């Protein structure tokens, strides 16, 4: 087709701490970060055999169509994937879910991709998604996320507004924007800490959620990107004329290598720096 005879194929594997049916359902749920239907501007999705889908993201040529060919819960999902990056050719994505004890081995094969620069770009794209997706399953019963709760003498509206001023209470070393939905910002502490955050939920006066969509904690020995896919959740509630802020680092569980150090750091950042900033307006 169009003289594009050579085709590319990419294969990815991830072990995910959940059962195949849970992972299967999450792959088709647009609310779960890390699957291809998440974080899009417009989505039409009909996940059944011969159902079609359409997605669009901000920016030129960031859209695509496709057709489901297999939806065999909980073992296999297959669909075609067509976009400017495939030059309109139907490429094929096959995702299989295999039970491995308590976990699931998820294998994603993307084949029939035209051999072009854009086609080769799918490897990076899938790795981006598949580094986020497994982190969505850390929040299972029995695994405890880091949490911190503080109470302040300010209204929920004030608290909400002040939390958005990240450079005043977490670190001055911040690039990007941190106030609106889909804003992204990067935090660096020298060479030791790099994390990129996206505002995935912003409910004025009530809730702010940041998804960590990239990270490198270089002081960690094994999995330097273990923050990637985790979420930082700020829930705000009124208590009389005061406010209670409940902070959760979803996915920061005791099994993580950084837990002990990250727990100490968050205790300082949330219970002292954020508390001081909201209470007295005293920036770091």
């Amino acid at each position, binding site marked *: *087709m169009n003289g594009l005879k050579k085709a590319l194929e990419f294969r990815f594997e991830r072990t995910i701490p959940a059962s195949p049916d849970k992972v299967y359902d999450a792959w088709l749920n647009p609310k779960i970060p890390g699957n291809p239907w998440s974080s899009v501007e417009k989505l039409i999705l*009909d996940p059944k055999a011969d159902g*079609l889908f*359409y997605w669009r993201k901000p920016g030129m040529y960031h859209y695509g169509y496709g057709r489901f060919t297999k939806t065999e819960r909980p073992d296999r999902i297959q669909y075609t994937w067509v*976009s400017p990056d495939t030059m*309109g050719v139907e490429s094929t994505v096959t995702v299989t879910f295999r039970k491995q004890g308590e976990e699931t081995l998820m294998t994603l094969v993307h084949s029939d991709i035209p051999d072009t620069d854009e086609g080769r770009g799918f490897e990076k794209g899938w790795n981006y998604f598949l580094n986020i997706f497994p982190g969505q399953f850390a929040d299972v019963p029995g695994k405890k996320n880091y949490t911190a709760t503080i109470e302040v003498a300010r209204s929920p509206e004030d608290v909400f507004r002040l939390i958005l001023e990240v450079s005043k209470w977490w670190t001055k070393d911040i690039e990007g924007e941190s106030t609106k939905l889909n804003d992204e910002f990067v935090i660096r502490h020298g060479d030791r800490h790099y994390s990129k955050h996206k505002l995935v939920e912003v409910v004025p006066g009530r809730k702010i959620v940041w998804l960590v969509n990239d990270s490198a904690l270089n002081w960690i020995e094994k999995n330097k990107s273990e923050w990637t896919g985790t979420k930082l959740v700020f829930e705000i509630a009124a208590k009389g004329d005061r406010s209670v802020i409940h902070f959760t680092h979803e996915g920061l569980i005791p099994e993580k290598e950084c837990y002990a150090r990250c727990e100490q750091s968050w205790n300082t950042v949330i219970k002292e720096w954020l508390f001081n900033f909201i209470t007295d307006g005293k920036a770091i």
Partner: protein
Amino acid sequence: MKEPAKTIEVKVERTIQAPPSEVFDGWLNPKVPGTPWHEGDKLIFNPKVDGLFYWLMSGTPHFGRFKEVKRPARIQHTWMSPNTLGHESTVTLTFEKKGEETLLTLVHSGLPDNEGGKGHEGGWNYFLDKFYKQFGKKADKKE
């Protein structure tokens, strides 16, 4: 691919012997010869706003999304295939009453300025000639 590619537009018209509502309904009915949906190897078709279609013709996949379905005056949908290089082009059909007849105008814009893009003019003429004849036949029978 960051720069917008240069595009061309194809316009095809036919005056059809039937009122706009009939021509409009005919165009969205895959059973009517001369609609693209009638021919081909596979069709998934949901002609309503934000409905999608998939049409496989001679091994070439086409996808699109309906943006306007305003009976009996206007239909607009996107159109993507290897012949648009995977870019979304736009097909707009208008149905204008001309006495007892309907002026059907099909404008296909946002096509790439290459052989594949230019080929759509021949394609639409092929379909609209067939479509036109469906209504002609019916009118002949009445006489």
